[in-house]
């Protein structure tokens, strides 16, 4: 079965794809920290920060439509949080944007700031995942000191989430093929719990088989991997440009706009 993988563009080739995963990850971390630390009245600065991930997405040939679709998928929780702000903070505030001046509330400002920060950091995250192969990302994270157990867990999660989704689809199809009428809430719930149970037992089976496959190939608890990462001049150039961009916004633009 074919899935709309979140990393489906990670196998393309572009200058961004060729960058070292460690450099990209560190830049993402710093960028996210800076965006999150912006004060709630900094909507105009947020717009400036958005230039970064947009540039990466465009240079990495990642369709913006794909990026926004992914953001929409994870947005409900943040949207509920953001839209609740105007309800509890109605302090009036005057907002000025160029020649336009209007009255609003702190709640609405906070709401737009949350949505803006979420969108921009998600864009940056999607830019990283869509331009970096997952194995390179894992190798990079391991190099950066993330515990090995976590790396192994992430590797397995990435490898088997699609197998699990396939199995869930098969079970749902089998149910749809035999469910010819509405069963009522209670029986639907009973069926759903049986399906979840079946999925769980099959997952345990799979885990046992994977354990056998690993031991059969000499696994003794130590995770060994050949690192193929290499810092080159273009990585240093990217790091320099990213630092210049973020530092510039942080030190120069922020005081002017505030």
């Amino acid at each position: 079965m074919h899935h709309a993988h979140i990393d489906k563009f990670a196998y393309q080739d572009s200058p961004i794809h060729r960058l070292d995963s460690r450099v990209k990850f560190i830049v993402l971390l710093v960028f996210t920290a800076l965006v999150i630390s912006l004060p709630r009245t900094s909507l105009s600065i947020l717009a400036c920060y958005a230039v970064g991930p947009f540039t990466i997405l465009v240079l990495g040939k990642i369709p913006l439509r794909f990026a926004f679709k992914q953001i929409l998928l994870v947005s409900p929780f943040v949207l509920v949080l953001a839209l609740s702000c105007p309800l509890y903070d109605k302090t009036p505030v005057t907002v000025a944007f160029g020649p336009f001046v209007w009255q609003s509330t702190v709640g609405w400002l906070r709401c737009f700031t949350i949505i803006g920060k979420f969108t921009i950091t998600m864009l940056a995250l999607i830019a990283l995942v869509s331009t970096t192969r997952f194995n390179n990302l894992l190798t990079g994270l391991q190099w950066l000191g993330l515990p090995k157990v976590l790396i192994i867990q992430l590797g397995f999660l990435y490898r088997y989430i699609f197998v699990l989704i396939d199995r869930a689809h098969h079970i749902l199809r089998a149910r749809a093929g035999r469910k010819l009428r509405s069963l009522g809430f209670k029986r639907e719930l009973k069926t759903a719990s049986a399906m979840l149970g079946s999925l769980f037992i099959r997952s345990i089976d799979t885990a046992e088989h994977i354990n056998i496959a690993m031991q059969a190939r000499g696994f003794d608890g130590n995770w060994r991997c050949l690192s193929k990462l290499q810092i080159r001049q273009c990585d240093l150039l990217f790091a320099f440009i990213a630092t210049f961009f973020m530092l510039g916004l942080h030190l120069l633009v922020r005081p002017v706009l505030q």
Partner: protein
Amino acid sequence: MPKAIEIDSFSYEYPDGTSALSEITLSIKHGQKVALLGPNGAGKSTLLLAMAGFIKGTGKVLIDALQINRKNLKKIRTCLGCCLENPDDQLFMPTLFDDVAFGPLNMGLSAEQVKQRVAEALETVGLAEMADKAPHHLSASQKRAAAIATILSMAPKIITLDEPDGSLDPRNRNNLIKLLRGLPQTLIIATCNMNFAAALAERAVLLDKGRIVADGDAKKIMSDSQLMTEHGLEVPGAIRE
């Protein structure tokens, strides 16, 4: 020269007390291609697990003259590579390269040796161009070939394969037969696909209800229609003609 596999009166019971294998006695020479035949639930997969030291029963199991015990387990698993029924269980790393390199790295080979082994194994199964692909981007036949490559990279003397022809179309099944025929290793193939077994094996071991029912020349056993029918199997088309 020691035998590749030497099993003497091996029995195994599942934790609930059901007998899975009873009094199995089997001897396989190096270089032989053996088909383990039997209906579903005959004990074929359990016997393969016993050969790789994954289950403990009563009796003796020697792999290349090494008795299966904790001390010898690492040597045995370098000598005997086992390929599981479902390639998705066999391919657990994020990329094909990492998966094929997993075994050689655990053997303690140097980075250069590992790279060479991976390249050779992928070349043998015809997946040299796919090294950087994630396993979930491979087709069923490519996954099967990749699973075999993960074993070949460890250069074992013996390879056990559990239902390797499962979910393969005829063309890919023929490709797999060609690949397995060309391997110099001792092959033990558990299958209930008689045509697949007939195309590969020179010797057949028929298992049913955990016991060896027949052992000998593959063509002779597989052409015995009464024996085949009695044990839920069939005479392969190639032999019938």
